């Protein structure tokens, strides 16, 4: 029984990373209408930034995490302003932004590969909380607890921001129709920039936490998160933070449980089969509502 619960916690911790990543990815997709292929690189670069903060500057872990998150956010803003802003003026739509995001992905990925010296780095041991937490018979790593807590805080905060705050209303308005939003007094440029920052920050958080827990700081970190986070977005529905969070955690749990009780080689297969199933049965995700679109 305690093995089961420990695996459940493992799954939740892994799933929290997917969830964090998916929240940022979905936010950009819903608000800015961009299928951002470069989103994974924010996570890689955030992990690299945190690693440098620890390795070069000797900062304590909370500050390194902050450095990573800030790095992810700034990078996302840069990509948005360089890669996507020129297209917005021209109405290039989903396709144009996808292409520039692919371009940014290629550039940032290969730069990240050079930055880590074509290998996978790992955080030096005393730099992060490496202890275990014991609750009764059950024990789990402190970092796993931090991942789950971070996911919960971000999910609740983001959901509140988007659903109940004034700025969130502006974000949804821009996502719905930018012209109409600016007619009613929203500054779309500002909304776009803040959205990019938020998305980069959540993705960066996932990157730093993932870099520490999986002991892998390289460009492959972002690619792995990208594939699973993407699955979480599809299952959860991109226009709902709760959906992305629930789906992300569920995918993590499913993956760990499948590896433990069914077969390691089918791990990814089960994730993607679930993904396909959802697309067939419930294409708008767990919390997805009815779509109203102009005919």
């Amino acid at each position, binding site marked *: 029984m305690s093995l089961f619960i420990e695996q459940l916690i493992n799954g939740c911790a892994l799933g929290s990373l997917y969830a964090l990543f998916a929240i940022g990815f979905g936010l950009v*997709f819903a608000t800015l*209408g961009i*299928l951002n*292929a470069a989103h994974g690189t924010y996570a890689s670069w955030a992990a690299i930034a945190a690693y440098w903060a620890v390795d070069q500057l000797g900062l304590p872990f909370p500050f390194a995490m902050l450095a990573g998150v800030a790095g992810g956010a700034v990078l996302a803003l840069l990509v948005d302003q*360089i*890669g996507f802003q*020129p*297209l917005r003026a*021209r109405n*290039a739509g*989903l*396709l*144009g932004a*996808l*292409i*520039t995001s*692919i*371009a*940014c*992905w*290629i*550039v940032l*990925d*290969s*730069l990240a590969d050079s930055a880590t010296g074509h290998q996978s780095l790992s955080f030096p041991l005393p730099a992060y909380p490496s202890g275990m937490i014991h609750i009764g018979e059950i024990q789990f790593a402190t970092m796993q607890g931090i991942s789950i807590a971070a996911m919960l805080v971000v999910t609740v905060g983001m959901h509140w921001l988007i659903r109940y705050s004034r700025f969130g209303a502006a974000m949804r308005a821009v996502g719905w129709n930018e012209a109409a939003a600016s007619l009613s007094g929203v500054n779309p440029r500002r909304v776009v920039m803040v959205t990019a920052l938020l998305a980069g920050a959540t993705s960066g958080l996932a990157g730093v936490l993932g870099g520490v827990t999986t002991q892998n700081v390289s460009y492959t970190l972002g690619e792995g998160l990208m*594939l699973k986070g*993407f*699955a979480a*977005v*599809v299952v959860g529905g*991109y226009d709902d933070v709760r959906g992305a969070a629930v789906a992300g955690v569920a995918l993590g749990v499913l993956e760990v449980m499948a590896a433990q009780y069914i077969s390691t*080689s*089918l791990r*990814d*297969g089960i994730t*993607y*089969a679930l*993904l*396909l199933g959802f*697309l*067939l049965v419930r*294409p*708008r995700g767990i919390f997805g509502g009815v*779509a109203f*679109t*102009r*005919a």
Partner: protein
Amino acid sequence: MSDWFQDLWAAYRSTLGFAMVNAFFSLSTYAVLSAGILSFATVTYAAAGGFIGTQLALQAHLPVLLVLPASALVGALLAFAVALVFLRLDSHWMALASLALVLITRVVALNATPLTGGVNGLSVPLFFPFAALAGLLALTAVVFWRLSNSWYGIAARAVREDPAVASTLGIPPRRIQTIAFVVSGAVGGLGGMTLALMLQFLSPETYFINIAFTMIAAVVLGGSYHWAGAILGACVFTALPVIAQAVLPEFEKVLNGVALLLIMIFLPRGLIDPRGWKLRRAAKSP
């Protein structure tokens, strides 16, 4: 003079070959895009065409010239099945769903060992003359040219611009898009098999997300409003890494990405842009 030419030919023969193979993929992507659908499923059709075609050649000892149509058929049938499911989704979800399909393709390729050779891959000891590849591509281009001037081509353009208006004009958008999927599947399957013939080796990594992304980029780069744009885009996209490798080998990929970014920002409608020509001609005439 002829020595010089032979050296050049030896050095860039495979680049030209891959450019032609990539042209099939980008034509496949263009086929759905021209009916207003962004789909990455080309990779899936290519994988089905490549693996099944190779098995047909190896197990059933079919000649290559029969294997190629068979691959196209496999791709077309698969695309028809995909269309039945995907056309219920709206455009954003369709793009996500087709990306998911690409991910699933790789998992299937990894686990369906009898068909794909699993992690070990599959060697393809078949010979296919270079001229035949060029001929096949020319034939495909002719088909696209004829299609673009046909009733279907005009209907597809209408559906791409506005499905609602198209259906008030008596064009059934769903049927047009299904046809687009089937064309895309056939060309994708063909491309998958030609890639197998070029590489002489297939692995689960052969048909993966990088093909999907580079092909969509190639189409948009070349111009997504004309079939020739897809071919030109594929050539440019195959040549770019080769040039970058020669200029700055250390930052080959970075150079690639930057080039793509610049082209997209300054030429958002691609290199071949029929509307741009018409506008310019209209501006010149008094």
